[in-house]
């Protein structure tokens, strides 16, 4: 189990962070996910454990969303942190990345999940359908809507003058 699961932990963390945009919350989710995976290891089906693990994590994240919405909790949204500041190219790339993440967070939860699983985590459409427990046709339509919407957001800012593209928060 160690050999199959351990290499997947960085990707699980990335997915969790992309959903909640907060390191502490994301790591709590991944830890919960791993504990459940250990205790339910015998229940999984044979084959690639990736969709199974992402499904556990996804469901935990969804529950977390529901709870924080009903309790009205607000967690800090983190910016990406690249330590080698200074160089213009790095700075510019950082702004672009920050921008796309901020726009991603405007998508509805279900569209964002599909886009992350497919475009970032490289899950097949069939595996993404398993993770989200929806038909593959729904995966395709959500993916399409997610991309169209993100594109509109990106193009919407392209007309603005360069320089004020990203309203950076004064975190740090």
């Amino acid at each position: 189990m160690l050999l199959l699961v351990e290499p997947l932990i960085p990707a699980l963390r990335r997915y969790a962070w992309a959903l909640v945009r907060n390191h502490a919350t994301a790591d709590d989710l991944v830890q919960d996910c791993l504990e459940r995976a250990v205790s339910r290891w015998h229940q999984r089906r044979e084959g690639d454990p990736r969709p199974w693990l992402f499904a556990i994590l996804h469901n935990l994240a969804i529950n977390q969303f529901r709870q924080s919405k009903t309790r009205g909790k607000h967690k800090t949204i983190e910016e990406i942190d690249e330590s080698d500041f200074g160089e213009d190219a790095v700075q510019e790339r950082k702004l672009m990345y920050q921008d796309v993440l901020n726009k991603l967070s405007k998508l509805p939860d279900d569209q964002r999940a599909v886009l992350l699983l497919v475009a970032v985590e490289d899950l097949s459409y069939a595996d993404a359908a398993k993770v989200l427990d929806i038909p593959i046709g729904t995966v395709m339509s959500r993916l399409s809507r997610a991309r169209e919407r993100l594109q509109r957001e990106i193009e919407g800012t392209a007309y603005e003058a360069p320089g004020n593209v990203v309203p950076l928060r004064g975190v740090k």
Partner: protein
Amino acid sequence: MSQRPITEDDLHAYVDDALEPERQAEVDAYLEAHPDVAKRVAGFSVQRELLRGALAPIAEEPLPPALNLSRIIESRRQRRLPAWRAIVAMLLLCIGGAGGWLLRAEMLAPSASAGLVALAQEAAYSYNVYAPDRVRPVEIRASDSAQLVQWASNRLHQPVKVPDLTTAGYRLMGGRLVATAHGAAAMFMYDDDHGDRLVVLTRPMATDQSQPMTPHSGGDVSGFAWADDGMGYSLVGQSSPDILRPIANEARKQARTI
């Protein structure tokens, strides 16, 4: 080129590099002829690269200690221990309370007593430990069966014969010595064309030196135990007793002719 029309799904699969090469070529051709669609698809690809680039650093961070999987597995094992102890204690109580009567009534025919019961239990343990092992189920393989017989006979201080179960469809895989509360025993393992495995365990008997064929079962396995001239045998497998009984009879017939 096929006449299948290009779909939205094809365009997304194109972006995600999930198309068969032939279909990808068709989409390429389509996009060349439709620059407006090509622009939209290019936008999707840029999004994809931006998202991947933006999130890559997260996956490259060193894992925090709380996500150390070995530690999670270890702490779970420790948490479970008290529960297991409670279960074991309860089982022991049950066995202590109703033991002898239960064993007589349920596990074995009335004629069998402790010696054969113990042997049957040991055979079942050996089956549960060694039969699921895909790496090293036996210590000495069937190809060295002469050496196996020599070794087992020396250690058991009795001539040991390996039953030949090929007529029942089971080939000898090999065997090993196993430790029991009553000294060393020899275990032989067999499998059939489906990979189903059988175990025959044999050792000298201090009590129950001659006993008729007796069925036993527990958990997923069942089997038959018997004893002839001071040597006890138990044949154990996951098949039904109806299937195992004739195989056990065959093994007994062969073991008697030593």
